[in-house]
């Protein structure tokens, strides 16, 4: 059965139809052709599909597309301002926190959600914020460096 979904993605109103069994990730990638959010485990364990849903990071692969109705969603495509990258994106580049890059959109969204809450995250805040994201190239130290750098830049400390 098809469901009509009226939602707001990266500030833009979107209306489209999807099968009721469709996940929000499939809706983004296949219906709307927004390929930035990544499909990986498809079970809510790896965080590659992380998006911000009504201000909170969630796994879009285990969320129903129908639940986007009336929601405000932010995806990786919504972070850069024209050619100017978001401070979190720039910090990942500047610290070399990217290897293959497949996990990176999910990480960046998790970190953006964290830094929207606080620009002085504690080590516990950081661990909590990215504990649902897996990087299989093993870049965790540099990812933590990137989070500190982004926080400092957003808060005007660097």
């Amino acid at each position: 059965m098809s469901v009509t979904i009226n939602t707001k993605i990266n500030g833009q109103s979107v209306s489209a139809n999807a099968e009721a069994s469709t996940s929000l990730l499939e809706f983004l990638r296949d219906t709307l052709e927004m390929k930035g959010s990544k499909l990986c485990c498809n079970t809510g364990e790896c965080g590659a599909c992380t998006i911000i849903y009504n201000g909170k990071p969630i796994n879009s692969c285990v969320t129903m597309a129908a639940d986007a109705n009336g929601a405000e969603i932010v995806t990786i495509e919504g972070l850069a301002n024209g050619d100017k990258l978001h401070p979190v994106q720039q910090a990942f580049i500047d610290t070399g926190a990217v290897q293959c890059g497949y996990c990176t959109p999910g990480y960046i969204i998790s970190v953006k959600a964290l830094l929207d809450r606080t620009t002085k995250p504690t080590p516990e805040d950081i661990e909590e914020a990215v504990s649902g994201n897996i990087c299989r190239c093993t870049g965790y130290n540099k990812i933590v460096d990137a989070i500190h750098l982004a926080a400092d830049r957003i808060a005007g400390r660097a």
Partner: protein
Amino acid sequence: MDYFEPKTVSEALSVLAKHGAEAKVIAGGTDVMVDIKFKEEPGSLVNIKKLPGLSGISENGGSLRIGALTTIRDLETSAILRDKLPVLWEAAHQFASLQVRNTATIGGNICRASPSGETLAPLLVLEATAKCAFSDGEKNQPFTSFFQGPGKSVLGAKGLLTEIDVPYPAAGSKSVYLKHAVRGAMDIAMVGVAVQITPDAGKNTIQDIRIGLGAVAPTPIRAPKTEALLRGKPLTAALLKEAATLAGSESSPITDQRSSGEYRRWIVEALTRRGLEQTWKAATGKEVA
């Protein structure tokens, strides 16, 4: 697959009455969406996520009322829950990942009726009650008789969990929830143990003891023989050892990809011992003699 978004509990119950066993209730979706993709699509999906009035935490005299649609993150960030029901807070805190906690609901964790459901051993130890809605009326069901097997509860195919009521532990009680898993985040517990000790007025003996075991039987269980052994006694080293062994024997763990049954039983013993030591010390200020 048919799809329903009922606007009220009674509308949801009518849909369930009509579609029964081939209908699947979905809220957060963190479990059901995985089933849809990797197992099979249900005949119909009943999305209750936006049902009004089923979300939130409120004080109710000597207990907390928690709406079934309250997310695990809402539990984790509730100051009153952390203060009054620390054993349930600990389970919420250790639950999966932040992304999952932001979506998953306590009602979903309960209705899934998985033996390893993170909040279930704490709810058994807290002697919480489930408010279950059926088309012919409401029923308050203690969690000690709520679960009937893996994936099965008294709700059957036609009932809906609307709220849970969790009484505050008796004054002076101390509790702990210990989870054994490989990866800190995301891992399903190989074993989860909840322990709550209430000392006597002089803090010399165990007046009341409750032990909940997760992931080591077809449902989350209490360990009644171990509790009976401990009740009314001071916690000595010999009693601690005997209690831990007995708790292991009250479990009936399976072997699966996460660990062998034998290993799980050892972990039940270890976590029971650890949980008893910690709560005894916290409740009485005494080391195990």
